[in-house]
């Protein structure tokens, strides 16, 4: 196995081989989970610290379950209960966590680049669980894992990502990962949330939902984040839903086998019609359960990296 990293900060600089290593290990862990057997590869005696400085349910819980499934000890710190609210710097927090003997830190932080900052500050493996609008590698890896389960190889597959791309770390990580695996990625949404500059990052940019749905092998919807977008990005949720929402009428344009993904949490009736979220083409809940196996693989590779080399 050719895994030389201690930290997972994003997909932008991962190689195809590294992505494949993570996903193959995730498959192994998924079989263990389905058969309810303890994995032979584990993190017994390792201490994983979940440092969540931004609200999160699904990612935090998935990392906790993943760590526990690998028999690791896991401690979760949320920003409300840490010294961060008392004004301690991230550097000080990191040094303290290192001093407490963490074998890996899973960090969610509102500032882009903070996992990189941590990895340069302390010699502890850092796993990015979402940094600002930058990257969310574990989410993109579980999306890719799910896509591969349903579509097989992803080269030349058309993947459409629809919604708030500008503020989305999920969109960026998926763009990097999917492009590396040969997929064609189309980013769709209002021009204010999908600026043309994304073409320079290798995506196709479109503001025409109907057209982009017709060719899609998979469509990934992103949450419209009311709290982030002031009124300036689009006039109203009603108008967004009307022009960019995935409703029953539009869903008919999709290929019969096209699958629908959403990283959650869903705004039912805003970016996606409630019945479509629950339809047979939706893989939203499979994404969540795949998230455990994928995060087990990430944790195992990073927290155990000193033993693997």
């Amino acid at each position, binding site marked *: 196995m050719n895994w030389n990293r201690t930290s997972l900060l994003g997909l932008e600089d991962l190689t195809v081989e590294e992505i494949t290593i993570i996903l193959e290990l995730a498959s192994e862990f998924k079989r263990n989970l389905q058969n309810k057997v303890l994995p032979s590869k584990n993190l017994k005696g390792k201490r994983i610290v979940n440092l969540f400085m931004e609200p999160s349910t699904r990612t935090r819980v998935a990392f906790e379950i993943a760590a526990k499934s690998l028999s690791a000890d896991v401690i979760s710190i949320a920003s409300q209960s840490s010294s961060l609210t008392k004004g301690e710097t991230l*550097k000080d927090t990191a040094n303290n966590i290192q001093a407490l003997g963490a074998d890996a830190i899973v960090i969610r932080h509102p*500032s882009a680049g903070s996992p990189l900052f941590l990895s340069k500050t302390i010699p502890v493996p850092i796993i990015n669980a979402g940094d600002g609008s930058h990257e969310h590698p574990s989410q993109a890896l579980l999306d890719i894992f799910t896509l591969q389960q349903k579509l097989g190889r992803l080269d030349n597959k058309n993947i459409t990502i629809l919604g708030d791309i500008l503020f989305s770390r999920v969109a960026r990580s998926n763009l990097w990962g999917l492009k590396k695996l040969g997929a064609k990625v189309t980013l769709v949404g209002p021009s204010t949330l999908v600026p043309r500059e994304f073409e*320079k990052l290798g995506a196709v940019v479109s503001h025409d939902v109907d057209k982009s749905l017709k060719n899609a092998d998979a469509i990934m919807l992103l949450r419209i984040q009311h709290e982030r977008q002031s009124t300036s990005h689009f006039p109203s949720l009603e108008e967004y839903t009307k022009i960019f929402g995935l409703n029953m009428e539009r869903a008919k344009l999709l290929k019969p086998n096209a699958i629908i993904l959403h990283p959650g949490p869903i705004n039912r009736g805003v970016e996606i019609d409630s019945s479509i979220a629950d339809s047979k083409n939706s893989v939203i809940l499979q994404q969540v359960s795949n998230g455990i196996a994928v995060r087990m693989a990430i944790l195992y590779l990073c927290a155990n990296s000193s033993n693997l080399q």
Partner: protein
Amino acid sequence: MNNLHLKNGHIVDPANNINEVKDLWIQGSRFVDKNEIEKSSCLEVIDLEGKMVLPGFIDLRCHPRNVTGGSTENICSISKTAAQGGYTSILGMPNISPFIDNPGDARYATECAERDAVIKFYLAGALTEKSEGNKLSPIGSLKESGIKAVTDCPYSTQNNEIFVKGVEYAAMFNLPVIDFPRELSLSKHGTAHDSKIALSMGLGGYPRMAEEIFVQRSITVSKNLEVPIHLSSISSRGSVELIHDAKSKGVFITADTTPHHIFFDDRMITDYDANFKTHPPLREESDQKALLSGLREGTIDAICTAHEPHQDYLKQAEYDIAPAGVTSLDTCFSAIFTRFSEELNDLAFECAKWLSFNPSKILKIEGGNLASGMCADFVVINPKEKKIYTEKDTCSLASNNPFYGKKLISVIEKTFVDGKVVFDKN
């Protein structure tokens, strides 16, 4: 009396169009002609063969943080740092503690500067109270308390009515107005130049438009009121075009840029290194080229240091949380000299214009001139020596200088204010 004879130095003096090896004489605090030196007084001869003599540099924008005390910077420490960099006069922005928007604090700061500063330290007063843009400061009273310019830098007066009235009112007192052009609604979430790089890094964009809209505002206001306005820290290629057009039509507009904007571009931030988070942000290569040619052609008149000290623990933080700004008073000249070293034959002459002669005209202060009768503010430079500057060398209390660790061409050997040495490399 302290009399000096500067011998064999290469004199660079754009004010008098002198650029040749020549001797200079100083009696007391002023340059004099050879025949004016009193025969009876003692004369110290300094041989400057191989060295250059430029008028002392004049900075149009720096941030001392505190009048006295504090752990980031104060008038005493910033003035020593400036002397190291060849500066003989600097203009402190009003956002210091205490804030310079009232005559009492302005008087206090001016008196402290007279006591603590090793060079000529001048203050800019706030154009509006607390630089919040809602109400004009007592500009006339501030002038009586010793301020040399008005500005809301590092902010810009957002309300157009207040800005126009402020420019009109300050003109009555012959006070230069400096605008730091930043339209806030377009840039308040911006921590990096709005580009492919910021987009992939997930950083909020601070677009060129935010600067250019306010550059155009100053041009329009200056043209209509027929009052000069100085634009500080220009970073965008579009701004250079706007200023070029305005100047060609006779508008009284002047502008400066910073050493970091002509030295670096936004590729420097790809590691989220907050030491390259500047104010305005570093832009693209095309902007850098426009700034360089703007300087060469005279569209941009000056280079300010934009010296913004910050404590290490604040800069060693998350990129978007870390404050913007870098220090550069100690390295500015050498950085510029290095940047242009392969492009310009008359580099020292151009530097003297950008760093001294033009700033003296913009601020309407003495200096920037080596003619007899003028104050003997000057700097001695070794243009051949190379040096790697580090935080160990600086008198600044802060070390957030992106030029540290780089090999720069030219070294400041001595700085003189009113004929007295205020910095000596040895």
